[in-house]
């Protein structure tokens, strides 16, 4: 069977599993729809959180980013995992004790203020939509390359699947589907990585393999060979960074804090039965995430070495078939500047002009083909990429629908609606959100990649400080929280919009504040939020006694509600 046959088979089989799981676990009450009635065991919740978190960006793009960025790519590895330590130690147990359904619920109740709730809802919706557009795009890329359908048809198929299980299943359906999706995506990521590690270094564990000697008998360490090749071609050493240390520091911090503040990640900790389970499920989540995140840098180093040795200085007539396949999608392009028919792939430090452009996003998908692995492995990677994109999209759509039905309609506009009406609204909102997300997948705004920085920056500058202060500083009142969030968001959004959308031509280190790039500015936004919040709250009245008691209560595990005993 050829690549396309295997891909069809594996994608269809995995989709059948997801739909089966979704039918078995569909939601019948708002409690089940929003938080799976808080009955998900911690290990399974860890898996679901991992699938929820690891998006098309983690699966498809991250290893490619690292392959091209070398050590600078570490900001993503540390930034997107370190946030879970913050979640487990500073947020998850207390939010689970608090109960309820959403992040705006906590912000609104703790700060006894509808204004705070609305600010939180707007942030949650914006952050989630930004993310979901990127996921639908990932679905489109996989479909167009591997299944021979257009990007648009691919997005439609993805929308239909997500619609089915997010709208019907709610959080309960999503959670159990995500467990299945985690298994598919981690298997699909590890199999080719292990194959390639064996081929290149003779060691089956990629995490160890990429620190080992090459299997070609040269006795050279893989990373030394890669450093040498990169330098020769003018790219600079792979294991050295080019970013300023301060900027790396701030970007890593913004990604960590942003991760801990993302509403679709936080809400997962409302779904477990106990406070104790909330702590341990953060640990399981990170363990499952770390499996992929420690493999990714190995995949990056293998892919980069393979690319440099197989493509560079090869006659164009002699390129392997994967090269021609990807050329057809426009994601790889060769321009013979000196007319010698040979591909000169060169970095900025080389005197020879570079003739090859490669989209970083294809590295993981093309890797099995570059290493000439069997057809079924290539098909498996396609199924894994789809699992990653769909699981994240579903989690985000749920946050959007919950925000609309619960936080806006029930809590702010019409508290009198029945649970049945609320559930119906949540389903309609999820349906509409799927359609909007699909629209962005088909007509991606040119700035999707740019606004992802904004999503993390806003999460870091708004939710994270508001929640932390709400738990750890009893004296924090609504004035401090609202002013802090608004100051943090305004500064962060302003900075990113200025450099990314208004004046992209000024976007380099000379113009940045203290040399901090827009990717890292969320950290500064967070510090501004905290400062403003502390100053304003010290000048305004202390929160009511009932609120101070609430804070005392969430600080201890005993007495956590048995989940959401809501009757349908």
């Amino acid at each position, binding site marked *: 069977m050829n690549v396309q046959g295997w891909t069809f088979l594996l994608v269809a089989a995995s989709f059948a599993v997801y739909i089966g799981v979704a039918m078995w676990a569909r939601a019948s009450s708002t409690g089940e729809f929003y938080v799976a009635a808080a*009955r998900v065991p911690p290990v399974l919740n860890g898996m679901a959180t991992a699938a929820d978190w690891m998006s098309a960006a983690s699966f498809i793009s991250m290893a490619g980013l*690292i392959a091209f960025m070398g*050590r600078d*790519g*570490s900001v993503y*590895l*540390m930034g997107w*995992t*370190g946030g*879970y*330590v913050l979640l*487990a*130690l*500073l947020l998850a*147990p207390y939010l689970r004790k608090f109960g309820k359904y959403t992040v705006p619920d906590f912000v609104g109740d703790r700060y006894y203020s509808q204004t705070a709730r609305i600010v939180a809802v707007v942030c949650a919706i914006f952050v989630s939509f930004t993310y979901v557009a990127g996921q639908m795009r990932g679905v489109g890329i996989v479909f167009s390359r591997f299944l021979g359908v257009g990007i648009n048809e691919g997005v439609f198929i993805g929308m239909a699947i997500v619609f089915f299980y997010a709208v019907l299943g709610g959080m309960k359906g999503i959670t159990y589907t995500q467990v299945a999706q985690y298994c598919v995506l981690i298997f699909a990521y590890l199999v080719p990585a292990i194959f390639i590690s064996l081929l290149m270094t003779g060691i089956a564990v990629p*995490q160890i393999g*990429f*620190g*080992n*000697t090459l299997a070609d008998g040269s006795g050279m*360490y*893989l*990373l*030394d060979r890669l450093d040498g090749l990169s330098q020769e071609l003018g790219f600079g050493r792979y*294991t050295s*960074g080019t970013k300023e*240390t301060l900027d*790396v*520091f701030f970007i*890593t*911090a913004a990604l960590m804090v942003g991760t801990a503040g993302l509403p679709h990640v936080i809400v997962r900790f409302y779904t477990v*039965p*106990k*406070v*104790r389970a909330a*702590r*341990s499920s*953060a*640990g399981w989540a*990170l*363990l499952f995430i*770390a499996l992929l*995140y*420690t493999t990714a*840098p190995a995949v990056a180093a293998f892919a980069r070495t393979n690319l440099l040795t197989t493509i560079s200085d090869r006659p164009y007539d002699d390129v392997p078939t994967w090269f021609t396949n990807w050329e057809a999608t426009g994601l790889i392009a060769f321009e013979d500047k000196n007319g010698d028919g040979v591909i000169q792939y060169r970095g900025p430090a080389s005197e020879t002009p570079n003739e090859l452009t490669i989209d970083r996003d294809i590295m993981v998908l093309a890797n099995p083909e570059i290493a000439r692995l069997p057809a079924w492995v290539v098909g498996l990677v396609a199924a894994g990429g789809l699992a990653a994109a769909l699981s994240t999209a579903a989690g985000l759509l749920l946050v959007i629908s919950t925000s609309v039905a619960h936080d806006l309609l029930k809590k702010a506009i019409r508290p009198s609606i029945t649970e049945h009406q609320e559930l119906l609204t949540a389903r309609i909102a999820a349906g509409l959100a799927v359609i909007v997300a699909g629209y962005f997948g088909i007509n991606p705004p040119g700035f999707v990649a740019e606004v992802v920085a904004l999503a993390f920056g806003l999460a870091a500058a708004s939710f994270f400080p508001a929640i932390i202060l709400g738990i750890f500083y009893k004296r924090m009142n609504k004035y401090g929280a609202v002013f802090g969030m608004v100051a943090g968001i305004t500064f962060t959004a302003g900075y990113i919009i200025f450099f990314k959308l208004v004046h992209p031509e000024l976007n380099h280190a000379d113009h940045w504040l203290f040399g901090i790039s827009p990717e890292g500015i969320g950290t500064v936004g967070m510090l501004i939020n905290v400062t403003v919040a502390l100053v304003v709250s010290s000048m305004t009245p202390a929160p009511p006694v009932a609120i101070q008691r609430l804070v*005392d209560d969430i*600080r*201890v*595990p*005993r*007495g*956590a509600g*048995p*989940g959401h005993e809501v009757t349908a």
Partner: protein
Amino acid sequence: MSDSRGRYWQTNLRYVAILLTIWFAVSYGAGILFVEQLNRIRIAGFQLGFWFAQQGAIYVFVVLIFVYVALMNRLDRRHELDEQEDIR
């Protein structure tokens, strides 16, 4: 009771402070601020700073969370603030 709760909270804060110090040291310290110095040390094909930035920090993160889980489960029991089993 409230005295016990006060001590419970202080101990919790101390655990968090210690664990976050380690969290900071392996990522921001070893992986970013002192990466060049550590890169002079080599273990097999890895330069140590590079290894912390792309591998080591992540392993330590996982361990930190499970250590915190164990410490807090013990602390909850000592202060009789753990969740009773009768809750489903």
